[in-house]
């Protein structure tokens, strides 16, 4: 299928994006920043076309549905969300250093989808439980939320590296990274977006479960882990907004939160779950 071929090539483009952002950070030469941005935009354009092709192909097979229905498609969409959100952040902050920390996540997600033997990349028809408009709403909100948390995670890692900066430092790498306050604020904004979308994701999933199984919450491991993730970020927001946490501690929380996201996404498949992608 052409879409999987396109998407596997995009994996390489994202790898080169990462390299370009990294070279920019190491050498400090703006040219690489421009190359990186052009590559990223090219990559996401191709990525969008790949997803579009897959969508059209599913209709040609007579089993048309939005490509958001299995692990392969969710990884493709996760990667796409990360890059889209990153492009918005780069446009707003006019700082390209974040790219070096965020593009590898999009690359890894796409590489896992394209090159892992465990992941079926075929277009599968929707089993009855998935035939619901809530599927689209649920997947889009969850994965855009995850993407925002991924960005916050990247910014928190940047925060930790920036902390090693000394006043008389001449390290190009650290000079190009935004200041601690800017990173802190950006990371917080990402958490806010992620939290709102995760809340929407849990709610859409819950309403869907109610119409499919008659129970809006059944303590399925995936549900429970999404609640745990929600609680971690809820704690972070309370600590920050009421107790005035800033800087290092929110950054640590953001890392813990993202680990919860990853476990909700992948780890839960090792526990028995309704969401174990191949039901």
């Amino acid at each position, binding site marked *: 299928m052409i879409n999987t071929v396109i998407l596997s090539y995009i994996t390489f483009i994202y790898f080169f994006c990462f390299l370009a952002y990294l070279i920019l950070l190491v050498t400090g030469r703006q040219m690489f920043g421009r190359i990186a941005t052009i590559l990223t935009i090219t990559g996401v354009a191709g990525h969008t076309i790949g997803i579009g092709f897959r969508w059209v192909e599913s209709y040609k097979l007579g*089993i048309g549905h939005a490509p958001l229905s299995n692990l392969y498609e969710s990884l493709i969409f996760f990667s796409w969300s990360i890059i889209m959100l990153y492009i918005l952040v780069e446009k707003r902050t006019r700082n390209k250093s974040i790219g070096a920390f965020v593009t590898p996540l999009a690359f890894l997600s796409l590489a896992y989808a394209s090159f892992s033997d465990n992941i079926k990349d075929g277009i*599968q*028809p929707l*089993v*009855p*439980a998935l*035939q*619901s408009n809530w599927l689209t709403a649920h997947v889009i909100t969850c994965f855009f939320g995850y993407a925002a948390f991924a960005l916050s995670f990247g910014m928190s890692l940047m925060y930790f590296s920036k902390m090693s900066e000394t006043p008389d430092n001449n390290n190009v790498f650290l000079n190009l990274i935004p200041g601690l306050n800017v990173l802190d*604020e950006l990371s917080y904004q990402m958490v*806010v977006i992620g*939290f*709102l979308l995760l*809340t*929407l994701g849990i*709610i859409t999933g*819950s*309403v*869907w479960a*109610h*119409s*499919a*199984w*008659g*129970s*809006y*919450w*059944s*303590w399925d*491991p995936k549900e*429970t*882990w999404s*609640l*745990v993730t929600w*609680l*971690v970020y*809820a*704690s972070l927001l*309370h*600590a920050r*907004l*009421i*107790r005035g946490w800033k800087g290092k501690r929110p950054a640590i929380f953001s890392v813990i939160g993202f680990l919860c996201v990853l476990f909700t996404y992948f780890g*839960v498949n090792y*526990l*028995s779950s309704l969401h174990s992608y191949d039901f």
Partner: protein
Amino acid sequence: MTDKKTNPLWNILRSVKLTLILLSILAVVSIIGTIIQQQEGAGIYHSIWFRMIIFFLSFNLIVCSIDRFPATLKLFRLTPSPDRSKVFEEDAPRTILLSNVDVEQVSSGIQEYLRGRFRNLVIKDNGNAAFLYCEKGRFSLFSVYLVHLSVLFILTGAIIGSIFGFNGYVNIPEGEAIDSITVTKGALESHKGLGFSVYCEKFHVDYYDNGTPKEYRSDLGFIVNGKEVLKGSLLVNHPIKFMGVTFYQSSYGTVPGDKIRIKIINDEKGAEETMIEAELGKSAMLPDNKGELTISDIRDNFMNLGPAALVVIKSPEGEATSIWLFKDRDTIMKSYSDMFELSPKFNPSVYKPFTFSIDDIGSVPYTGLQVARDPGVQFVFIGFIMIIAGLVLTFFTSHRKFWIRIADEKGDVKISLAGMANKNPVGMDRDLDRLLLNLKKTTGKWRPND
């Protein structure tokens, strides 16, 4: 109020530190639940102490809200005085300088601009200068209470559902009707009458070309007092609600039907085989008229050993012998080799000279339905809407206060701009910049020299 503030218990209950601790405990216990769940079912989440954690968290939330609400209400009611000078002491003050204009004219012009765009315009003129105050997003002060109220709504809905609602299941074979269901509560199961009957006319499964299921559909009829009141097709994701009870398509399978084929081996005649077919409740003659066989019961899963049938054999002398025949006799033999000799009731060779076995039990498809009533779900869904609205208001709106001072400065008119917000200072800065720009545009009209 004063004794509340010194009360150590109140101080603990109103602290966000307690909130953070409770949130962490809830997270950790939930995680433990997902790990041990595989062995013990979802029991941990229905245990008393898990509910206690949620109860304490709600209590903490309520106390925090009660504790903070008066201050918020005060802020909400308070209109700051327009003639503050401190707010204008900024590092980079936003000002506009106008020459050859009249203070009065500028002041009324700005007032006209602000009216309709901002709220609570307050004007004060102390002779030397005109002070204007205006604001927006005052209701944003309450948004966080909306979020917390929504959590209470969701929990209330959950409590109402668990007290007044039920969740259960029922299997209806094609062509049959049921009037009660099995209700599950944690690990407990009980029967519950519905007050009406549900009839399954047919159960269909449709497949895609590659063999994956495409559609499960049950054609149901709902019967009250012997009359069919409602007819409908039940599909996954498309539940049917009838008399307050909602039915969901959840599984399917087959149950033994009424027909059974029995293989009879005559041990005297060199293992001569005969097949006879019988229906539940009906009789059939044994070979050579050596008695009469009646099927008196057919079970889907008897003694957890699979499908079985109870046959009663009447000898020509009128003596009755009952035997349970198991369909999966060979597999049962592997685990319980002596089981069929232990009791004559299970011994298929007890009626001489025959040995009986089940050759086939006809099967009937059944549809498996989830059945639930949840009077709390409306509260939960209202809570969902509230939490989204509350979060959007909390994170994306703020109470923004603007002060404008119009003063005469050495013959020119100087307009100073300042502002304060309860959150999101970056957004406030952007707002002030925009206001400055717009005021420059508006006042541009009265600048004859420019």
